[in-house]
């Protein structure tokens, strides 16, 4: 049996006190609250590490690059302690047939019990010839691993939606994992973004280890805890949007004052991701904070929705001339309509949940 996370940590000289601190940090990163800390600690102490096969198709490796920058928890803790990362061609020591032998070994040893993490996607044109690994199409490798895995993590926008290689005209017919014809019927969690936020990636893995299931997913298959809000909802420049204060050109006074970037093409209002709360590089910053509009990289087909600098025209805002009373009346109307819509959505969701597969 594979060692538990706790054993590995103790072997590395980490005290029990530090271990518990790690658990509580992880709980808060997952938005679970202090009551869940003992459960995480228990999972780490008693559960064997999850075997993970991390395969690469058509991709740019930015997901792996993001992943190794995770600060809470540190990527090294995840890679060395929480999971048993048996194959990842970006960071593994082996190459060539030794590397490919590990894929087969993992599939045989943990048949039906390993997590298949997919970074990138397979091309379907010319029977997958645009992505060849060890002399065989990646498409074959993906099918083979998917047939034997327990569940699939679709890392990034490539595996989730198709991303840049699937942008018009999609010359290789690059196809996201869940749309690959004949792909094994396994639970799939999408963690989109180009790349996804490092802490979101490690948090998803921590959750799966702790609770032995996926976190709650939205109807597009993304973890709700990170993808249920738009960048716009928690953007620190949001007050400028509401006040009608916009940057009109890159070098104007409004840009210097840090006004809203909506008119410069910001896709924050239509992009569901956690950048404005979790932020990047250990919480240091995110694109809007650096003065550039969000390009909407976690959304399906974001490459083909017009220029990144063309502003979206279907976002409603409170007019600058409207006073608080008028805004209040309008908002009350919206709330009423939203409540009705919400009831309908809840009914659908309840039905969906009943149909959900337990992984």
């Amino acid at each position, binding site marked *: 049996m594979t060692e538990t996370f706790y054993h590995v940590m103790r072997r590395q000289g980490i005290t029990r006190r530090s271990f518990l601190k790690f658990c509580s940090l992880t709980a808060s990163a997952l938005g679970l609250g202090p009551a869940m800390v003992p459960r995480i600690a228990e999972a780490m102490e008693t559960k064997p590490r999850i075997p993970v096969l991390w395969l690469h198709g058509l991709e*740019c490796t930015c997901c792996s690059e993001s992943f190794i920058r995770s600060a809470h928890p540190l990527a090294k803790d995840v890679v060395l302690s929480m999971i048993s990362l048996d194959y990842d061609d970006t960071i593994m020591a082996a190459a060539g047939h030794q590397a490919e032998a590990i894929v087969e070994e993992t599939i045989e040893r943990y048949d039906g019990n390993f997590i298949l993490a997919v970074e990138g996607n397979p091309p379907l044109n010319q029977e997958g010839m645009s992505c060849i690994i060890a002399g065989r199409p990646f498409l074959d490798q993906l099918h083979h691993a998917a047939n034997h895995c327990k569940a699939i993590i679709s890392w990034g926008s490539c595996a989730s939606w198709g*991303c840049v290689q699937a942008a018009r005209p999609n010359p290789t017919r690059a196809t996201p994992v869940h749309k690959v014809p004949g792909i094994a019927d396994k639970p799939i969690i999408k963690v989109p973004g180009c790349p996804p936020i490092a802490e979101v990636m490690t948090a998803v893995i921590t959750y799966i280890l702790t609770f032995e299931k996926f976190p709650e997913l939205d109807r597009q298959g993304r973890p709700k805890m990170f993808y249920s809000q738009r960048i716009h909802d928690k953007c620190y420049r949001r007050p400028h949007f509401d006040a009608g204060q916009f940057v009109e050109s890159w070098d104007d006074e409004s840009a210097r004052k840090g006004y809203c970037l909506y008119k410069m093409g910001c896709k924050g209002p239509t992009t569901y991701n956690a950048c404005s709360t979790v932020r990047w590089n250990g919480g240091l910053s995110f694109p809007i904070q650096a003065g550039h509009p969000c390009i909407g990289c976690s959304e399906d087909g974001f*490459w083909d929705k017009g220029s990144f600098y063309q502003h979206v025209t279907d976002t409603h805002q409170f007019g600058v001339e409207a006073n608080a009373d008028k805004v209040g009346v309008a908002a009350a109307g919206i709330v009423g309509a939203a409540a009705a819509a919400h009831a309908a959505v809840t009914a659908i969701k309840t039905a969906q949940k009943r149909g959900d597969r337990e992984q």
Partner: protein
Amino acid sequence: MSMKTTPNGYKLDDSGRRVVVDPVTRIEGHMRCEVNVDDDNIIRNAVSTGTMWRGLEVILKGRDPRDAWAFTQRICGVCTGTHALTSVRAVEDALGIQIPENANSIRNIMQLTLQVHDHLVHFYHLHALDWVNPVNALKADPRATSELQQKVSPRHAKSSPG
């Protein structure tokens, strides 16, 4: 000995022992290397092949030139910013745009910062595994390492006894 001429006009010595490494790991993308070694283990023929094609050149056609950097940046997730900055410069050259000195300085800072970060990633995550055996490294003696470090650089902040 069998000499071959490739369609591109290169001469290949296809004799001796053939060694194939596929996939080459710890790089961006997918790669295959084939070499032929003679009796003295000298490489007489080497072929490397990128085994992945996404067609970014085709996808870029007909796009808004202001967006080109983002597509180009996705060539590689390890050296992203370099591709982006180069793409921006290519678009500016094509349109005859002169950039102010400050913009040039900012870009240089971005590029050099990326270079520093890339050295760390490349050495510790990618390159080091060619030189370090991680299994043996775990058995290393931190005190001995620290003593060695102190001999080399006594004032180094990290050279305190382990």
